[in-house]
């Protein structure tokens, strides 16, 4: 278990930037780390930046929606940002439209979206 995906804390939010090719073990590790951190720092929102992700499969897709559901249980909103067109098309063709996961074009907009969500809550 040498490689890990870093989780950065930015105010009330957590920022996860996926910069490497996701494989299944890494995804499970991320799930575990992230839920722990949410509880630890009382995060209200999670931003997952997947702009560097070029390849997805159904497992990664399911992991993304799992993370969102887990975060919601822990009272944090999840926004997936920066998805590439090819990745979006692949996920749709796989029949996974990530219902229940919020999305935004880039980190900036994702942050703005989280802020408005929290303000209206």
């Amino acid at each position, binding site marked *: 278990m040498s490689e890990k995906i870093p989780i950065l804390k930015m105010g009330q939010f957590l920022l996860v930037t996926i910069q490497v090719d996701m494989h299944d073990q890494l995804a499970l590790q991320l799930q575990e780390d992230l839920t722990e951190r949410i509880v630890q720092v009382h995060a209200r929102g999670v931003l997952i930046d997947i702009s560097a992700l070029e390849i997805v499969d159904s497992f990664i897709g399911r992991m993304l929606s799992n993370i969102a559901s887990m975060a919601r249980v822990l009272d944090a909103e999840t926004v997936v940002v920066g998805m590439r*067109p090819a*990745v*979006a*098309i692949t*996920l*749709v063709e796989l029949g996974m*439209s990530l219902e229940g996961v919020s*999305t935004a*074009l880039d980190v900036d907009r994702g942050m703005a979206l989280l802020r408005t969500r929290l303000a209206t809550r």
Partner: protein
Amino acid sequence: MSSLGGQALRKILSQSQQDILAEWLQAQLKSATLRSDLMKEGELREQSRVLLRLLESALASGDPSRPQGPEWEELRQFLAGVSRSRAQQGFSPAETATFVFSLKEPLFARLRRELGRDAQALADETWLATSMIDGLGLFTIEAFIKSRESIIERQQQELLELSTPVVQLWESILALPLIGTLDSERTQVVMQSLLERIVQTGAAIAIIDITGVPTVDTLVAQHLLKTVAAARLMGADCIISGIRPQIAQTIVHLGVDLSEVTTKASLADAFAIALRRTQARLPSGAASAS
């Protein structure tokens, strides 16, 4: 037989090529299939001359009963070029093939004069010449059809690109006016160009206008929903507009669920909603909206 056969053919082609060419051209120029409106006489002369020359050199080493052999490569290349140019000039397949087949008449006339009363040899040589020219003619038709197909394919591709423009209506509002039937191949192109434009412009809302889509069946609806889902994954909302009354009825009858998507009857309505959602303001110089 083939080593013996074809002797007379070779002989007349090398000895009286000029005469054959003259007779052939005369016949072609008189024939009903001459299309002087599509092609200049000079070009026809040149093509006929080159064809005879190449035929002679192919026959020098090649077997006339098998025009598929490697010795015929140069002649075949030439014929393919002729077919291609004629397909572009607008000739019909029959007219193009007649160019090759019309060589039979002067060739047979020569053979008859050459072999005279030797009926056996005349029949053999005529048969050889027939099968040779038939082979070449069929090859010409094949090449003609191939080049026509490639023309059609290219036009299809151009049409596909023409028919899927993505236009920016306002800052962070895109519109995608769809015209024509949506099949899965086109959906791919539409989806790709829409998503790429979303990345380029940073758009938050995309309006898919289906005024120009003649019919919406379950498959088309599914394609639309796929496009909407993909845009949503990128962080852009979609509005579907331009739904005609009949299409609304069909959608409901088919049981297609569009409740997840905002739908509007007209592009104007959709645009108004998009402006409100993005809280767009008129820029100070109203004409220079970006």
